[in-house]
């Protein structure tokens, strides 16, 4: 199960809506081993594409160095699908490289840049196997 605060969920959704029709991507970092997704880091989609996302390699290194310095890890890796459902694509599964992370997918296919609900789902992706998990939204972490 993934537990997120409203603020973190809202920031991910806002990012996905803003970047539509391109895919938005980022991480939510948290203290190592805590499973608490606390700090949203919006990343630039270097692919700038409606069907692909990739962190810029220089920004990727900066992000990881920052997390190592803070004893953090990527608790959530998120990205949006802008024309399809919020379910990992074959490419997502093939390239998933953080076995400890929750992979959050947001689909903006219904309302695009406009207000309105989005699909917001979370998965574990380990060794090519996808397991969906429940997302619980809380006011703040207990």
């Amino acid at each position, binding site marked *: 199960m993934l537990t997120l605060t409203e603020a973190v969920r809202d920031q991910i959704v806002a990012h996905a809506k803003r970047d539509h029709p391109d895919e938005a991507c980022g991480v939510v970092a948290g203290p190592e081993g805590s499973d608490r997704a606390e700090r949203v880091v919006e990343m630039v989609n270097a*692919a700038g594409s409606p*069907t692909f996302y990739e962190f810029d390699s220089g920004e990727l*290194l900066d992000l990881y160095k920052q997390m190592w310095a803070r004893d953090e890890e990527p608790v959530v890796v998120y990205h949006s699908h802008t024309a399809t459902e919020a379910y990992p694509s074959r490419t997502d599964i093939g390239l998933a490289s953080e076995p400890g992370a929750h992979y959050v997918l947001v689909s903006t296919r219904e309302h695009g840049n406009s207000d309105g609900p989005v699909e917001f789902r979370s998965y574990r992706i380990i060794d090519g196997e996808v397991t969906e998990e429940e997302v619980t939204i809380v006011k703040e972490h207990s």
Partner: protein
Amino acid sequence: MTIEVRIPTILRTYTGGEKAVQGQGDTLAALIEDLEGNHPGLKDRLVEAKDGQDDLRRFVNLYVNDEDVRFTGGLGTALSDGDQVVVLPAVAGG
């Protein structure tokens, strides 16, 4: 000559769980060969054959002293004692 190599979580199965290992070599290619001797299987996760020659895998990033080696000569990138190498899988998908 000692070079520290930072290993990402997903490849620590090859390093007995270690976050960083040490190796040697005067190029990145030589370093990877050296690492393979102590951590069998690691090389195949970093390089693949392209047109009959070893090349970096598309979705693995290697950095020497914070420079992406794609901009410094790839596997031919020269290394010196004390260099810091970081391996990071791309964060990407469709």
